[in-house]
């Protein structure tokens, strides 16, 4: 079929949108190698000195990274455990109030994180003495739960439950059915949910900026604080590393679960 005018239009818009999406990332990567403190284009030579800066103690970026992981990894693991069991209860069994339960599990999505953070801040200030890590952990643990539940439900929703019965009738015990049939088939949804949940926690700033203590500051908050004082290419260097990590993640997702999971 010959190409029509309107599909040429769509193709042009699509390509422009792709360029728009990629340009700030490409610019950051190029800027990270400039030798001068002020970023010029094209860069006057090549330098890796800003990358050395990241690991220097004055930026606190490594400490921030450690803090972000200390919150994000346990919160994601716990949410996968709770979210997957919660999603199973909704999809596997028929009972009144299923829809209510799904809305309940995903309700933190509808509350602005800054509003929830402020509520937690007031509760913490009444209780007192809660360490910085726990302050942020509780907030992240709650706001990322919907991502795990929703993505798992979207897979289990179209799940063929008779496969479980088939496995049972062939002699599998409940644990075998769960780990060899249910979990592998639900894996794309669980992985996509876990990835989105972890990244939400890893990138989260609004909640952390209200709940962090001077001793416990996460990486994106460290980057923002650094930006307010110094605007040198160290920012481009740390950003490049984060961009690279995202690229690796997306390619791994593409290879192992496929990206169609993200199409709603």
């Amino acid at each position, binding site marked *: 079929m010959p190409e029509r*005018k309107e599909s040429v239009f769509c193709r042009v818009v699509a390509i422009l949108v792709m360029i728009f999406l990629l340009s700030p990332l490409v610019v950051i990567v190029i*800027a990270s190698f400039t030798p001068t403190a002020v970023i010029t284009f094209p860069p006057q030579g090549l330098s890796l000195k800003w990358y050395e800066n990241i690991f220097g103690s004055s930026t606190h970026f490594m400490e921030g990274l450690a803090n972000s992981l200390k919150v994000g990894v346990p919160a994601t693991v716990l949410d996968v455990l709770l979210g997957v069991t919660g999603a199973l209860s909704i999809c596997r069994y028929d009972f009144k109030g299923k829809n209510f339960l799904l809305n309940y599990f995903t309700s933190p999505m509808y509350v602005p994180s800054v509003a929830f953070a402020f509520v937690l801040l007031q509760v913490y200030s009444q209780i007192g003495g809660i360490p910085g890590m726990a302050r942020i952990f509780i907030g992240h643990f709650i706001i990322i739960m919907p991502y795990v539940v929703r993505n798992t439900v979207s897979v289990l929703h179209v799940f063929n439950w008779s496969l479980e019965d088939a496995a049972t009738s062939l002699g599998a015990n409940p644990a075998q059915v769960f780990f060899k049939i249910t979990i592998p088939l639900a894996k794309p949804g669980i992985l996509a949910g876990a990835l989105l949940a972890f*990244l939400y926690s890893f990138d989260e700033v609004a909640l952390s900026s209200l709940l962090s203590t001077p001793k416990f500051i996460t990486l994106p908050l460290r980057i923002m604080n650094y930006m307010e004082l110094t605007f040198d290419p160290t920012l481009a260097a740390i950003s490049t590393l984060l961009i690279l990590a995202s690229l690796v993640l997306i390619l791994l997702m593409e290879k192992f679960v496929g990206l169609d999971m993200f199409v709603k």
Partner: protein
Amino acid sequence: MGRRRKAFLLALPASLSLLVFFVAPMVYILIRTLASDGVSDFADFFSDPFYLNILWTTLRVSLVSTGISLLLGYPTAYFMARTQSNLKKVMMVVILFPFLVSAVVRSYGWMVILGSNGLLNQALLALGLIEKPLRIIGTEAAVVIGMIHLLIPYMILSLVGVLQSIDPNVEYAAYSLGASPAKTFARVVFPLSLPGILSGCVLVFTMSMTSYVTPKLLGGSKFRMMATMVVQEINVSFDWGAASAISYILLGVILAVQFAVVLATSGYMKRMGGGKSA
């Protein structure tokens, strides 16, 4: 009965955690706010042009960002849903890749491009098109650009799913019956894709309403939206009453939008024959 018990036990850990760490604090603080003179803080908000202006700015930025995301996202999603080429896989990666990059990093990228010493100003100066650098960072335009960059992937992903599920034969049928491309779009494709448009717009609008990083970094110190104002009231002005009023008003707007959409879609779904929303 055994099955109900199992369902109950499976749902218990998540339900209890949400109850203790989410519902209880929210309700407790709401009651406390109303019990103290929280009502006067709400009255202050709605009688102070300064605060009303922030609400209006937030709504305006969110509406404009949502509108432009839809206008650019729709053709993109349509192309992705219909193309047979390998380009689709590449585009999926290109859309999801920035989507996974921190909002702080993405705003920083726009600061490097749009700053007074930035790439755009250097290029325009070198070409002799301007005499002195344009001020873009610190304006609402910069916030809208950053917001679209942040949120257009959500719009495209919402639309691709719905557009993919529309059988191309339906469009060919309309053509073969003599409908022009414009008419086919207006009478066939557009109505069928409405659920995706709606869910994409609601997602982008609410995320824009509550966004914090983009307005803070690209809007500069004088530019305020609801979320940045809450943090400023707490961390800078130490005015918890105002912060509480602003955050509950923000929550109210979000819930009102969600509620309106549920009402609108249930009516629409009934007219379309009770299909499942995408």
